[in-house]
Structure formats: C-alpha cells, structure tokens
C-alpha cells in the first residue's frame, strides 16, 4: 500500500514537474529560438545574470517575472467570475490529459510492479477526448465574459472550430482502435513492441489526419483563426492581461506536449526503441543485476519516449512557423469536406484489411 502510494506520488510529481517545470517555460524559449534559427536570425540572447546569457534562456524568466507584475485587468461590464475562471478552465485539461499517457512500460522493481502511467484507465483515449472537449469552455467563456466584440467572435470561432475538429479527430482515431482493439493506451503501447506493428505503418493516413486535427484542436498557427491578429485583435483573449493571458498560452504549450505524447503513443511505438523488444533490453542490462537491469531499462524507455515527444514538439513548431493561416471557411471546409470523408475511407479500408 505504501509502495503504491509512493509510486503514484512519484509519477504524479514527475509528470507535473516535467510539464509545468520543464516544458511550459522552456517551450516559450524554444518557440522563440527555433523561429529565430529558422529565419536566419539569432533570437533572444541579451538578458544576462552576472554576465551569463544562457543562449537567451533567461528571457523566459524575464517574461515570467514581468508578466507576474503586470496589471491585472478586468474590463467594465465583464462577468468577473467567468473572466477569471476561463484561463484556469483552458489550462487544467491540458495538464490533466497527460495522466493517462504511458511514458514507460511495466517493470518489476524490488518485487514491486511498477506501471509507468499515472492512471491506467480502461477508457484512456476517451478520457483525453473528454477533457480536450472541456477545454473548449475556456476559450468560449473567455470570449464571452470579456464584454468585447472581438473576444466574442474569437470565442465563437474557437468553439465552432474545436467542436468540428473534435468530431473529425474522433473518427481519425477509430482506425487505430480497430488495429489494436483497445482504448487502453498502455495496451496500445505494449502492442507496438514490434517495429513493423507501429501505428505509422498500420495507419499512415490516420497519422496525418490525426496530427492535422490535433493541431487544429490546439488552435495553433495554420489554424489559429480564433486569435487571428489581422482580423480580430487577439481573439478570445483580447481583454486579458498579465498572468491570465499567459495562462492561455501555457495551456496551448502544454497541449502541444500532450498531442506529442498521444501521437507518440498511438503511432510511434510509445516507449519502444525500434527493433529492440523489452526482453532484449532487459537482457542487455543483465550485468547490473535484475533490479538494476529493470531500472536501466526503465530509464532508457522514459528517455526514448521523451525524445520522441520532443521530436514531435519540434515538428509542430516547424509547422507553426512554416505555414500561413487558413481562412475561416477553409478551416471548416478542410474539416468537413476533406478530413471527415478521408477518415471514413480510412476506417473502411482498415475494416476491409483487418476484419476480413
């Protein structure tokens, strides 16, 4: 019982620390620096503490402190409760969804069975969908409660876009579910031990469609019509300042991590290295004793998982800095006329092949 407690607390702390402590601040810096490198610039590099500029990493610290000391503004006529609650509503689902994503397999440590997922839910995927659908309210309420027309339009756009892409996303994932026959993310992970059983080989079309839908659900660059600067000032967070505004952003950044986690788990073999099964890994580390071997294997698996996640974060950032924004009707057309039929075709073909 105590061991279970310690295990789950350690896992929660790890994921929470990884998300809030590492990814949320560092992604702000990464986005800045990556865009700079991609555009042949140098990027933020002048903030220094005692003469040290850790290639501009202190700029995100400066941003954080500045944002904390910025005036917190609530416009007149705004609904204060919802105006304050909206950033939290959009931030919390982004953190919570990570608790069903496995970041490692199953190991036996000192006679104790360790499963590297915070909550091994039977309906893991549906849980993610449920909470990502709750994230809509953050945008909608933020837009409505600001008492501002730009915000309202942004909120309406956000809700319409997120609703329609949720439908499409649900359909794109069904192909994967048919292949692996489970909603449990750990089971899906275990089944991808064989390199040629990875989701990307089973469902290449599903992968492309899912990534598109996920980016659209996250409201990032090619699909950032809810916050289009050229049309509606800053969309649903026009009236937000200081910390609340940054909370929307943090939610966005954490959702990038979550999307990368899901894509890694469903399509890129979760925590497995290609061509190396768990058994091989364990036997490879046999020199360290049985406990040491499983600890080493665990570390290798966690590292593999997070390297894959970081790769997909990088990929999403590249997409964000490469593609221009869609028009609103194009976003809707892409969803209902392209992705939805294609995902239905994908389901049909998968059914033909696998359920003969």
């Amino acid at each position, binding site marked *: 019982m105590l061991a279970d407690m310690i295990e789950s607390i350690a896992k929660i702390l790890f994921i929470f620390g990884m998300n809030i402590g590492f990814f949320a601040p560092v992604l702000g810096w990464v986005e800045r620096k*990556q865009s700079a490198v*991609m555009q*042949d610039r140098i990027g933020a590099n002048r903030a220094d503490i005692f003469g040290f500029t850790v290639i501009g990493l202190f700029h995100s610290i400066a941003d954080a402190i500045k944002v904390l000391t910025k005036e917190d503004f609530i416009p007149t006529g705004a609904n204060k409760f919802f105006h304050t609650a909206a950033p939290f509503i959009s931030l919390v689902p982004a953190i919570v969804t990570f608790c069903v994503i496995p970041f490692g397999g199953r190991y036996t440590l000192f006679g104790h069975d360790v499963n590297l997922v915070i909550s091994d839910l039977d309906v893991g995927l549906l849980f993610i969908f449920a909470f990502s659908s709750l994230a809509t309210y953050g945008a909608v309420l933020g837009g409505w409660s600001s008492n501002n027309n730009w915000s309202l339009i942004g909120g309406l756009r956000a809700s319409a876009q997120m609703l329609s892409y949720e439908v499409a996303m649900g359909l794109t994932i069904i192909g994967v579910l048919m292949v692996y026959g489970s909603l449990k993310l750990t089971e899906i992970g275990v089944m991808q031990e064989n390199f040629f059983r990875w989701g990307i080989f089973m469902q290449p079309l599903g992968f492309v469609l899912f990534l598109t839908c996920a980016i659209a659900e996250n409201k990032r660059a090619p699909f950032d019509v809810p916050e289009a600067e050229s049309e509606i000032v800053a969309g649903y967070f026009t009236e937000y300042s200081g910390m609340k505004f940054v909370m929307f952003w943090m939610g966005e950044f954490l959702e990038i991590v979550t999307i990368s986690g899901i894509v890694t788990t469903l399509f890129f073999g979760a925590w497995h290295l290609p061509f190396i099964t768990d058994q091989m890994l364990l036997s490879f580390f046999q020199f360290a004793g049985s406990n040491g071997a499983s600890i080493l294997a665990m570390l290798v698996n966690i590292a593999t998982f997070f390297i894959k996640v970081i790769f997909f974060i990088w990929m999403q950032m590249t997409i964000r800095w490469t593609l221009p924004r869609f028009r609103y009707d194009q976003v809707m057309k892409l969803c209902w006329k392209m992705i939805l039929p294609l995902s239905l075709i994908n389901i049909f073909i998968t059914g033909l092949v696998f359920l003969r």
Partner: protein
Amino acid sequence: MNKMTDIDQKKCHPMVGVPIEKLRPKQVRKNLELTLWESLYIFEIIRGMYITTRHFVLNMIGFVFKPKGQKRRIFTVYYPEEKVTIPAAYRGRPVLVTWKNGKEKCVACGLCEKICPANAIMIVAEERDGSDRYPSAYTLDMSRCVYCGYCEEVCPKEAIVMSAEYQGLAERDRSKMIYSKEQLLRSEESVKDRIEYIRRIYSKCSY
C-alpha cells in the same frame, strides 16, 4: 540615368544593380486554379517544411561548428558591438564642415535655411572683421530633420554635408535634440568621402 549608374564601368540594370547577363525574366503563374498536385496540399506542405527545416539544420550546424574566416550564414548585425560600414552615398546626420584652422566654412548665406522643407535650420549671421560672414548661431532641430540632403545640395561652400553618423541620436528628452553650432562642427577630414561623392554626383547631374 545611365551615366549615374555605370560608375564602376559595368553594365548594370538601371533598376536593381544586377548585371544584365544575370537578369532573367521570372515566370509568374497567373492562373490561380490549383493543379491536382497542389490541391492535395500535403506534398506542398512537406516541401515548405523541407525549406524551413533545411534552414534550421544548416544554421544549427553553423552554431555548433563555427566556420572560421568564412562569412557566417546568419547575417544579423549585433548592433551595439558590431557596426555596418556605410557607403558614401548614405545621408546621415548633417554636419558643418570646418577649415583646417577650426573655423566653419559656412558663410551664413541662409540658402539651407530657406530650402529646408522641415524648417529645421535657423541661422543668425554676423560679420567677422567687417568682411567675413559667419553664423554666430546655427541651430539644427534634429527632431524635425528628415535627412533629405537639400541643404547639402544647395550649399555653395560645401559647408554642410550629410555625414555617415547615425548613432546616439535617440534621446529621452525632446529639447536635447536641438543641436547647436558647436555640436554640429566636424573637421573636413572626417567627411572627406562624402565631399568627394557629392562633387562627383552633383557635377554629373545638372538640374
């Protein structure tokens, strides 16, 4: 027009300064209907991402293994530490040129004051030893000056020229931007390039 541009005795396109042999008409697709390949989007997106990724990777390699002696790919000017050299044709802030003995060349004729479109110049003329005219006060309002170069062009004595200076012009106080004569004086040596340039360029184009 051509007289102005073939300074280097090279045949250049009058507009862009590119040798004519290198100029090729660029084909522009006028029809906006997408081909089937383009309307699939995905391959075009991959092509775009290839370009950005190539830039990213090459620049990252350039960061890690710094090329020695070569021109670096990232051409950002690290301004306060690094400065670009400015050609003589650049019109920086106007300065008053002095003779070798430190006296200003200006004879306070008032032409620059008249022609200045922003009314930035104000001259108070006086006579030295009963014959030499000189400006006892020459104020230049830098908060109004638009760097047009009319004053330089109209000056009969080459007394006011556009130098290559551009630093230290930003101020926290607007009243500090009104420059007096003492702040404007520069030796002839420091603006030699510009004086040569204006001699060449204004002798070619006679208005």
